[in-house]
Every structure is written in structure tokens, then in C-alpha cells.
């Protein structure tokens, strides 16, 4: 009697299951590849290209067509006029052509040497254009009865133009200027320092405040649900609404916070909370803590409520005081969630853009790496430099992620 062996390798059922799994995942994978992976690759490409904001629109032939002179009676001799130009002031266009249809009843008298006419189809070849070239093409015609009879006017048949231009995004010019520019000078060190301060203190602050809030609400009493909902408000509200509310609350001229501080005698003149150098950075960090403590609070509270109460009863019997219970029982239980939250929040705070952008616009010493991307790409209109900063961010994140994956693999749940 032969011994029964478990099947070796993947059977047909397992294969079918795997196929189905990939089929179900396919839409997600393709969408993510299209919108996340492709842009990430693009960032690397752009970061070594000398691209300015204005280069995004490829140079093209701009043309306008009208009819000059009288064309009201048979025998009139107006001209059809084409005005053309190169839309770019610094890029050539090669192989510029124009083609159009002359309306019935207009007889072409004279033709520019660069153009040809077959039947009523006009075709012109202008060759290569230097940056900023302008051309005016006049075609004198005589009016016949047929033109007056039908309604077709020269403008009604739009002329088509063609021309090739090299796009700086796709050509083979590469440069390292972008990186040289962003790493240059003290500015980069300051950006790095601001990012570090904001990320570290924002993360730790939000965690501690969230822990405190969770401790407050970790008992059932009337109104606990209401308070929990209330404490989540900062996280749920649109960032733009709360950021502007903060700006108005702390406004140096008509803000209530300043009025209150002056009246309480804390300060004698209004403080420009979001406009002074060290203070602005502290304020945006506080805003970050305020806005994200609900998230840590929620997770910590959920973890606390899943801790067995028997343990605390036993500790009570043994005479452990409340602080001892917290320190020796709760904290070790919460350590897992706290470290997960710390890593997640650390990366998310590092990535945060909207908050600082809305509060200070990156001024007064609050420019973090992410704000710097926007600043370089749109304020200074140097897309290439913005992409270079993005590459730096990506490198930092990769480092964090490696660390994260290595560490998190020990954590259950995530």
C-alpha cells in the first residue's frame, strides 16, 4: 500500500484562485501605476530637465484670417489676409505649413511663391521659423457672382497649420543645475531644519496631546459620546476652513487672541503670530498638533478600550496606585500602538503641505521641503527645481519606509 502524499506545487484550483486574485486587483494596480508610479518616474525625469513653467505650453503657430477691402459687388478686388506668428519667443518651429480652402467665387489673382493652389485648396510652406517670427500673407482675389450668392466667407473655413517644435520635456537636453540650485547656500539647510523641527515636534506633540485626551475619555459617563465627537472636529473639518479661522483668530490687527493677551497684560503690543521668525514656525507646529491630535486620540482610545479590565482590578487588589497602574499596566499595553502611530504620523507630518501653505505660505521661516516644491515650481516658476526638491523628499521617504517596513514587521496588526 503506497503512502498518501500531499500534493506538491500549485494545483489547478490554486492557480485559478491566483488568477482571479490578480484579475480583481488589476484595476487598482493599473490605476495606481498610472497616477502614482508614472508621476514618480516623471519627477525623476523632470528633475534633470531645464523646465520653466512657461515651457509647458509647446510653441505653436498662431494664425488669424480675415478679408481686407471691399467685397460687396462683382469685380471688387479684396485680399485674403493671413497673419501668422510663432507663439514662443525662444523656441524655433520647423516645417511650418498652412492649408486652407478659398471660398467659391473668389478668384486668386496673385500667389505668394511659397504657396500653391490646386483647384481651390491653398497650401503654403514657410519652412523653418526662428523664435518670435511673424508673417503676413496677402492673397489678392476678385469677387464673382457665386461668392455673393452663397454665404461662405473666407473665415468660415478655418485654416490649418502644422509645425514641429521640440519640447524641452521630451528632448534630450539634461542638466544638473536644478540640484545645484536647491542644494546651494544656507537656504537648503534652513529648509531641512524647519522640516525636522516641524515633523518631530508636530508628531510628538500630537501623540502626547492625543494620549491625554484619550485618558480623559477612557471612562463611560454621560456626554462621553458628545465629547468624543467634539474632539474629532479639528480633524474632520476642511483644512482650508480651520486654517483661515486660525489666521483670523491670531490676526495682529483685529484678532481676538491678541486683544485677549493685551488685555490680560501678557503683552503690551500686538504679536504677529504667523509673521515673525521663530514664532511662526512654533505656531504652524501647534496648528499641526491641534489638527491631528484627534487621530492619535482615536487610535489610542480604541486600544485602551480593548485592554482587559481584569488586569486593573487585580492591580487594585494588590494596592497599585492610579499612576502605577498607568505606568506599569497601560503604557506597556499602549506601546505598540504608540510606536505605530509615531511612525505613521512622522511620515505624514513630513509630507504635510496644505497646512503651512495656507497659514504662512512658507514665509517667516516656515518653509518645509514640501512647501519648497511648490515655491520652486510655481512661485519661482522653475518646474525643474521643484522636481529636484521632490526627488530629495522621495529619497528621505524611501529611507523612512525601509526603516518602517523593517520595524513594523514586528508589529502585529499593521
Amino acid at each position: 500500500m503506497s503512502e498518501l502524499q500531499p500534493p506538491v506545487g500549485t494545483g489547478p484550483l490554486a492557480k485559478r484562485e491566483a488568477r482571479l486574485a490578480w484579475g480583481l486587483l488589476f484595476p487598482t494596480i493599473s490605476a495606481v501605476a498610472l497616477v502614482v508610479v508614472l508621476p514618480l518616474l516623471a519627477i525623476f525625469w523632470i528633475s534633470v530637465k531645464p523646465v520653466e513653467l512657461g515651457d509647458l505650453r509647446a510653441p505653436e503657430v498662431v494664425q488669424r484670417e480675415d478679408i481686407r477691402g471691399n467685397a460687396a459687388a462683382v469685380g471688387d478686388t479684396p485680399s485674403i489676409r493671413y497673419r501668422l506668428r510663432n507663439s514662443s519667443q525662444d523656441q524655433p518651429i520647423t516645417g511650418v505649413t498652412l492649408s486652407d480652402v478659398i471660398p467659391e467665387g473668389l478668384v486668386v489673382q496673385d500667389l505668394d511663391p511659397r504657396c500653391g493652389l490646386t483647384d481651390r485648396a491653398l497650401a503654403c510652406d514657410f519652412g523653418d521659423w526662428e523664435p518670435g517670427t511673424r508673417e503676413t500673407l496677402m492673397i489678392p482675389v476678385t469677387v464673382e457672382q457665386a461668392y455673393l450668392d452663397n454665404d461662405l466667407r473666407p473665415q468660415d473655413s478655418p485654416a490649418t497649420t502644422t509645425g514641429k517644435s521640440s519640447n524641452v520635456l521630451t528632448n534630450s537636453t539634461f542638466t544638473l543645475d536644478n540640484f545645484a540650485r536647491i542644494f546651494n547656500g544656507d537656504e537648503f539647510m534652513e529648509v531641512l531644519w524647519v522640516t525636522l523641527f516641524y515633523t518631530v515636534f508636530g508628531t510628538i506633540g500630537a501623540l502626547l496631546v492625543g494620549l491625554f485626551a484619550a485618558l480623559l475619555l477612557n471612562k463611560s459617563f454621560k456626554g462621553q459620546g458628545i465629547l468624543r465627537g467634539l474632539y474629532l472636529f479639528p480633524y474632520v473639518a476642511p483644512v482650508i476652513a480651520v486654517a483661515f479661522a486660525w489666521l483670523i483668530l491670531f490676526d495682529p490687527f483685529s484678532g481676538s487672541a491678541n486683544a485677549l493677551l493685551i488685555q490680560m497684560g501678557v503683552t503690551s503690543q500686538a504679536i504677529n503670530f504667523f509673521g515673525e521668525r521663530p514664532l511662526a514656525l512654533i505656531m504652524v507646529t501647534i496648528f499641526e498638533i491641534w489638527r491631528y491630535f484627534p487621530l492619535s486620540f482615536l487610535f489610542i482610545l480604541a486600544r485602551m478600550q480593548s485592554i482587559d479590565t481584569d488586569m486593573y482590578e487585580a492591580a487594585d487588589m494588590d494596592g497599585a496606585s492610579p499612576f502605577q497602574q498607568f505606568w506599569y499596566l497601560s503604557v506597556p499595553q499602549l506601546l505598540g500602538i504608540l510606536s505605530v502611530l509615531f511612525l505613521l504620523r512622522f511620515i505624514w507630518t513630513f509630507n504635510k503641505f496644505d497646512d503651512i501653505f495656507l497659514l504662512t505660505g512658507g514665509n517667516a521661516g516656515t518653509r518645509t521641503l514640501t512647501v519648497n516644491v511648490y515655491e520652486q515650481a510655481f512661485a519661482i516658476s522653475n518646474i525643474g527645481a521643484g522636481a529636484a526638491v521632490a526627488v530629495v523628499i522621495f529619497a528621505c521617504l524611501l529611507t523612512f519606509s525601509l526603516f518602517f517596513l523593517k520595524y513594523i514587521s514586528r508589529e502585529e496588526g499593521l
Partner: protein
Amino acid sequence: MIRRGYLTGTVIGALWMVVVSVTVAVCMSFGTGDPFRPGILLSLLWGALAGGAFVFVGRNKLVQLGVAVVIAVVVLVGIGPMLTGMQAGITARVFGATALGIAIATSLAPILNEVVPGPLNRHEFEGAVIRFLTGFGYIFFTAIVLIPFYVMVMTSLKNQAELMQNPLDFSIDLSQGAALFRSYDELFTQFNFGTYMFNSFFISVLTVFITLAFAIPGAYAVARLRFRGQAAFSRSILLIYMVPMIVLALPIYIAFSMTGLRNSFWGIVMIYPVTTIPVALYMLQGYFRGLPAEVEEAGLMDGLSRLAVIWKITLPLSLPALASVSLYVFMIAWNEFLLAFMLLDDPSKFTLTRGIASLNSSEIPRQHLMAGSVIATVPIMALFLGLERFMTKGLTAGSVKG
């Protein structure tokens, strides 16, 4: 050393008095617009005395009444924990003094419960400290959460002149009646906020449906089906969520500029779901894993195909999770600012957040800016408060277990 009743009582009393007098002073200032301010040193002194009274004399109703009266009187005389400016009316002063007296008497007595003049054991001492911290925590959190939102609503109901006149005055003049809502009316009639609101709503709802359409099959595959790379896949989902939006926004902006998708509804609807699919997938797969596989296997045995199992068994069972994921995705899409700001320039296609950003100019009064903020905040708050149970569950259950 600190665990002596007389010391604990006076120190906690002093600190608690500071908390209460700051709270009452801020409340009175905001409520009346008159100058009220806490005197820190006087607060410490009177608080210590009140704490001492509760520890040595007792905490019954009579002592509480005595403390309340004494504090109220010293405040009125002008040597109490809270100082009042001359401009304040007599009613406001009496009201403030009484409020402070009652607040301190009724709150300090329970905090110092169990505290006796002699040595305290750890339980008694830490109990008092914890009650003090708890009280402080409730006041602190409620204040920091409510004040910005209250400022938002109040500013939206006041015109520039009223705001400049006394920034401290948080009261709302209800006698104006409907004129109070002038800025809201103008936003809807002149600034197209009705359209923006519709746009936001439409885009958010579409985002929810598209996200679910992508995430449900994906989450099911990751949670239930066995295939090579399953573990790696479920982990890398979160990694996608780690990529900062601004890094993606730059190439997307370039691509959209060159293809003409910028300034179009569909461009936004194409991008939003992709930002939410990873997190939705992650939350759903956590939930799917918790469902009993036996029910699905029974369905398979009875001849249902996998897809039919998902449709007829898994989805009906996971309705609560779908609700919370939808709510969360809706919230992300509704609140999204960066992409809307970068990709939309045409005022007829603005979302609410983009519309508010366009109100942020020196020519438009801030009343309108705040009214716009309120308009964007209220629907999401209402939705959130109504479905809070789903929201908190969805946020925590999917991502962190045990």
C-alpha cells in the same frame, strides 16, 4: 513631602484657581467684550486659601457656600483672583464674580475629596491629582476645539467695522434678524457658492463610488484569495499612502496642462479616487479578514461563483464597513484642497475648497471668507456627527487591530 493633606490641598487649590479664573475671565471677556483678566498671584493666594478651607474645615455644602461668597466678594472689591476693568458694567461684574465663586466652590470640593490635613496615602494623593488634571483637560480641550470654530461662525456674522471695533466681543447681535446672514446670502447669489457646493458634492459622491468599485475587489483579493505576493502586496498598499501629494501633484499638473485636462471636471474625478483607493482598500481588507470564511465557503459549496459570493454574501455582511469607508472617502474628497487649487482655474468648475481659496483676497471682506468656511464645514460636520459611530469604527478597525 507633597503627600501631606494641607500641602496637597493648598497647591491643588491654588493651581485650580488659576485654571478657573482664566477660564471665567476669558468667558466673560468673550461674552461681554468688557475687560476681565485673571490675576495670577492673587489666584494662587485665594486658591490656596480655598483649598486650605476645604481640607481643614470640611467639604459640606455650608463651607462651599462660604467659599463661593468670599471669593465673589473679594472679586467685587477688586482684590480677588479675577480683576475687572472700569468699563465693565455692574451687572457683568456681579455676574462674573458670582460665576467665579460658584465655579471654584463646586469644583474644588470634589477634587479635594478624600484629602485630609495629615499624611495621605498614594491613592488619595494621586486621586486628587488625577481629578485636577481631568478637570483641566476637559476645559482645555473643549476650549481649544470650540474657540476656532466659534470664531469662524461669529466672524461670518459680523461686518468689518464691528470686527475691528472690539475683537474681544464674541457676542452675536441677534436683533439684526435675517440681516445677520447677509454674507451667506451674498455668497450664494453673487459668488456662485451654490454651484461650488454642487460641484463638491458631485465630485465627492463620484469619488466614493469609483473608489469602492476599485477597492472592494482588490480588498477581497488581498484578504481572502491566496496568491504569490499577497503579503508583500498588503504591505505595499500602505506605502503608496506615504507618497506626499505635492510630489504627485507636480507631474499631474504638467500632464494635465499638456493634455488639456486641467480645468476639467473629469480630470479631478480621475485623480481623486486614486488618492483614496489605497486607504479604502486597506480599511476594507482589514474588515474582510474579520468576516468568517465559513459562510463564504458554504456559498461556494452551494455552487456560487467567487464573484457571486462577493456580491451576495461578503458585501451584505460588510455594510457597516462600507458605510464607514464611504464616509471617510467622502470626507477626504470634500476636504481636498491641494489638487483642486492647482488644477482648477475656471470659476464655474470650482469646488468649495477652491472657492474659499478664491475668497482670500484683500478686496473681499473676511466675513465672506468665514461664511464660505462655515458653508464648507457644516455639511461634513453634520454628516460626521450623524454617522460618528461608523466613522470612528472605520478609522480604527481597519487599520489597527488589538
